[in-house]
């Protein structure tokens, strides 16, 4: 806190000569960024670069098998066309999960901001985030309990309507999306909440005084102003979801085949790291492309 002492040493009525030549801005910017990106470089970027190198090899370079440079791993989508379908399904899974999270989470954030105050609000927020602290695997297994035939959901239904059939959705895509929405919803609630909580009441009142009903306020004021939150939330949900494998495997039954499980299989069973890595990097490229397009569209809209 060198700077603080300098400021404290400053006395009334004089300009302290010691702070006259501050560090140039780039120095402090670098100082702020260096720890994070240094850390990421060691822990993520360099390891991933290794993997990127692997993805151009014909075999995992760990054994004795001779490896050579090849691009064939990146041809997988052409050689094995069923991967395209899996990839598309994964994207759709990501899309639906993100969409549901966005709708449910945004509304929850709005409700938090507009219908609660003070301690109640903070307690509710913490209660919403807490389920996150239980193990994902345990949570997913618990969902199987709820969703399976004669599970909790059926039981509750049968309490009300004794001889209704089963409404089990376990081992369907609905179950997978449900599990994923459950697992990722808190991200969206929190990021939207953060974006919404600082909106000045006067702005909403202004809209109301101009004749806007609540739905207009929602989509003309709250959603655009909470866009940063929605976007961060979408990033934090969409990206991991299309690579997820636990929820699809456990809740999806035979339909639970996703890019995530394909990649996992390459690593755990097939021992084909190059293919697994190339699939992941392709996935990353697709994700980046989607977000680049998306943010371009967004920017275009706010500018116009």
């Amino acid at each position, binding site marked *: 806190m060198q700077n603080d002492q300098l400021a404290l040493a400053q006395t009334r009525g004089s300009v302290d000569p010691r702070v006259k030549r501050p560090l140039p801005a780039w120095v402090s910017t670098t100082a702020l960024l260096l720890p994070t990106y240094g850390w990421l470089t060691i822990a993520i970027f360099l390891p991933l670069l290794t993997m990127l190198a692997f993805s151009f090899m014909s075999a995992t370079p760990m054994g004795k098998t001779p490896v050579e440079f090849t691009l064939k791993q990146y041809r997988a989508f052409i050689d094995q066309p069923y991967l395209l379908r899996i990839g598309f399904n994964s994207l759709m899974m990501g899309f639906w999960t993100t969409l549901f999270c966005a709708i449910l989470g945004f509304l929850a954030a709005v409700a938090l901001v507009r219908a609660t105050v003070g301690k109640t609000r903070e307690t509710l927020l913490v209660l919403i985030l807490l389920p996150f602290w239980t193990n994902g695997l345990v949570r997913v297994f618990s969902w199987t309990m709820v969703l399976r035939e004669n599970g909790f959901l059926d039981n509750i239904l049968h309490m009300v309507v004794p001889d209704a059939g089963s409404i089990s959705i376990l081992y369907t895509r609905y179950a997978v999306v449900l599990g994923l929405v459950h697992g990722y919803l808190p991200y969206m609630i929190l990021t939207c909440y953060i974006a919404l909580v600082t909106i000045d009441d006067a702005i909403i009142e*202004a809209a109301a005084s*101009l004749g806007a009903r609540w739905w207009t306020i929602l989509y003309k*004021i709250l959603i655009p102003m909470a866009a940063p939150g929605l976007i961060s939330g979408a990033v934090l949900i969409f990206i991991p979801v299309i690579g997820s494998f636990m929820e699809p495997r456990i809740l999806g039954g035979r339909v639970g085949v996703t890019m995530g499980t394909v990649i996992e299989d390459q690593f755990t069973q097939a021992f084909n790291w190059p293919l697994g890595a190339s699939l992941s990097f392709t996935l990353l490229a697709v994700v980046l492309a989607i977000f680049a397009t998306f943010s371009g569209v967004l920017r275009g809209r706010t500018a116009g």
Partner: protein
Amino acid sequence: MTNVKVKSVAKTYGPIPVLTDISTEFQEGSFTSLLGPSGSGKTTLLRIIAGFIKPDEGVVMIGNSDVTNVPVWGRNIGMMFQSYALFPHMTIAQNVAFGLERRGIKGEAARKEVDRALEMVRLSGFGDRLPKQLSGGQQQRVALARAIVIKPSVLLLDEPLSALDRRLRQEMQVELLRIQRESGLTTIFVTHDQEEALTLSDKVAILDRGRIVQIGDPETVYEKPLTRFAAEFLGDSNFLSGKVENGAVRLSNGTVVRSDSALPGNGADVTLAIRPEKMSLVTADTQPNKLSARITTVIYAGPVLSYILETPDGLPLKLFAQNRDGRVLREGETVSLSWSPEHTIAVAN
């Protein structure tokens, strides 16, 4: 019928009463200025009329219907906020168009109205900027345009011109008045500028600590203030206290002052208010009211010179003189003041 009536409205924040038993009517198509010290409850009253705050007690009526429980968007009210409350994510044009769209005016028609409104507030060409790219006064004008463009039946303006320079403010006043007259909007206007209040309004209402102390047309309120507070708040005043004696007032120093106001009976205590511009420095023997005083300060204020004076027995007085020939009189000089009984108003304390 879009007159606005408030009946026995009261509002309390925690233990603090902000409005107490406000009852008044704002006639259809009238322009009313609301004046009052900072914190007296002006904004709160506007917000109650607009419907952002529910009064603790009392009723708000627009036209002939009780709207106390009608939500804001059902009241057809235009409000301009003291804090502007511009939509930060929309351009200026989008901000102004917002209310039009809600009224089903879109496309070319909306564009035209927006252009006209921006022209009115002298911001043509700023339509594509974002609010944060504007100066304070420019933002205020956008807020004004946004509230006016929808031509609501009731227009509530909370210090709409406070951030504007005098010239622009005068232009805006003219425009505002024109639109108000043309569309017959019932307008309630909070301002701190007494000149603005007096020149623009059909009615002036003076608020003090959550109560309306006087409401009437500008000349009446200015020339015949009912209370000491009103006399002091709207414009300046000299106050003279004394006892009634044979239809006149005898001050403590023995001077007898005549007033055209109705005075209480002999021997009663009474406070008289005299506007500083009504007093004359030039010795004119024709006036019955006279005092002698020493000039302590001359304040230069452009078109007007303010003289601060003191009578020999320590009574402070103020006098305005038109600055036609500069400082004719100097500090330290002793002068004789005179004024007419017509301008000697008896006020309540």
